[in-house]
């Protein structure tokens, strides 16, 4: 939480599935917690893909494959669709991911990641495909995500791509600030709006 963001260079965990919904990221039965225990949510990230119904490890799932690791999750398009549960972002952060790369994110989940200092990086379909290929060819290959420069670099191919983030949110991530700090400092403006719209 509120970990300042700068440049991250890491190996990646590939999840080349499309339309990964937040029910898969964290199933509803784990939403009953009343506190933000990131470890609890992280331990249950992709719970029903990580474990068989009898509780044993599903060794075919990428998180259980020791070949892959790192702070960057690379996922197929339309990542985080469905439920607005922020628990999904807590689970991703709690597991230790700091960046999620995809060619397309669902709106609410993307905001949730940003609000938890996890950076969603939108890349082109071509860049994503090549990234999956690079990871497949060499799981130890690294990717550099440079927030100040707004670039992502596939170090296996040397190719870089620019990614979008608004200047305000970039400032927040780089300085460990959140939206509530901003809003609470703006109460006079809110009251002025209320008075004007009566």
């Amino acid at each position, binding site marked *: 939480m509120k970990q300042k963001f700068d440049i991250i260079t890491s190996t990646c965990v590939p999840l080349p599935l499309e339309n990964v*919904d937040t029910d898969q990221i964290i199933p509803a039965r784990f939403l009953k917690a009343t506190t933000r225990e990131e470890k609890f949510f992280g331990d249950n990230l992709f719970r029903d893909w990580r474990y068989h119904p009898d509780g044993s490890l599903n060794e075919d799932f990428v998180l259980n494959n020791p070949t892959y690791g790192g702070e960057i999750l690379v996922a197929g*398009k339309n990542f985080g669709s469905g439920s607005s549960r922020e628990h999904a972002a807590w689970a991703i952060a709690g597991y230790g991911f700091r960046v999620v790369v995809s060619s397309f994110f669902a709106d609410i989940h993307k905001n949730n990641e940003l609000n938890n200092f996890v950076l969603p990086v939108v890349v082109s379909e071509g860049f994503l495909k090549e990234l999956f290929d690079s990871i497949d060819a060499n799981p130890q290959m690294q990717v550099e995500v440079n927030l100040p420069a707004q670039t992502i670099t596939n170090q296996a191919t040397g190719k870089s791509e620019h990614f979008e983030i608004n200047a305000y949110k970039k400032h927040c991530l780089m300085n460990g600030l959140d939206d509530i700090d901003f809003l609470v400092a703006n109460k006079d403006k809110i009251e002025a709006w209320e008075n004007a719209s009566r």
Partner: protein
Amino acid sequence: MNTLFDKIWDAHVVQQVEEGPTQLYIDRLYCHEVTSPQAFAGMRARGLKCFRPDHIYCMPDHNTPTHDQDKPIEDPVSKAQVDTLAKNAEDFGLNHFGMMHPKNGIIHVVGPERGLTLPGMTIVCGDSHTSTHGAMGAVAFGIGTSEVEMVLASQCILQARPKTMRITIEGELGKGVTAKDMALYMMSKMTTSGATGYFVEYAGSAVRNLTMEGRLTLCNLSIEMGARGGMVAPDETTFEYIKGREYAPKGEAWDKALAYWKTLKSDDDAVFDKEVKFDAADIQPMITYGTNPGMGMGITEQIPASDGTASFEKSLNYMGFEAGECLLGKKIDYVFLGACTNGRIEDFRAFASLVKGHKKADHVIAWLVPGSWMVDAQIREEGLDKVLEEAGFAIRQPGCSACLAMNDDKIPAGKYSVSTSNRNFEGRQGPGARTLLASPLTAAAAAITGVITDPREFM
């Protein structure tokens, strides 16, 4: 030359953050027990009070059991979450309709039916199906828990302005085709990400002719196309629905509100970022065959050939279906009528009209869950409970229930459930559960035959 969305959004802009999002004023925050506790904890940690407590309404709905609500919740973890909401509402001075309160129910059913949701409002809730409220002519969208905390603290939220899309559906709906089928049809054409980044306005004669309940169902499912929200311009249907409801304006305030609401429509020359058109005549009763709501088809059609992706194969494998298969006649195990999608009085009327004079198939377990106590009361007032009982169905107590199975209404692994809810994701209705989304009419037909059935056979 503004769209309906523009008019409401622009009227709520407190400020535009430089090179950043919009600070948007929120008229109504709804809180349920699942996505709010960490927001309240954050408020406490920062030593903040709610900025506008009278704008905020809380009610538990996800964890509430659908039986014996007068007794304590058996699951201690669910109970703790429901109790936490009650305590937070009390500590922060917020309106709270607890379990067994006559105004309790699914938050997206209660808001409109009590007149808390009104045209022209901005509405948020830590729940993606907040899009439902757009049916009343409001800008309503789901948010995360950090954003709930923003609204608790400041009655504002920071949001990027979405693009606008108009989906026009002209023509008359055929026999047995409902708002649910319209939505499932659109999703099957547009996919679950087809409207991501957009706020949708639904227009056209097929939308205009929907009842308020139908529009609520339609807007509810906007998020399943990825849309930020969906809305319908308020009209006589809307005004008629709102008039006299408990929290709706009365007397002079009503006249003033009505005059404003009548201005809430897209100008004739309004420009949308995207326009999509559908023909109502192309829609038949729909059913889903896969594990996202965009994987739907007409009930008489065959499952399409694989698109070659790992996701598609995984999906059919999970469902136990094969490409090219028609689902008619396939045995099912459970039927669920309810949820913020189809838990309103009209849905119970539709279900009852179809099962009237028939009997529930012996092997089918049917859960009929009203969206609120108000819906429950109306079911009884109209005598629908008798019709349903004679056909072998019992009515449960209100809540989200088997839509996401956070209470004990879970579909067992491997079982097939024809469900009027909104999501058929893997494990949504319980680990391993196989969900087929459909309308209340299609669910009713399956409940009496025990197999997937075209509801038009009974109409």
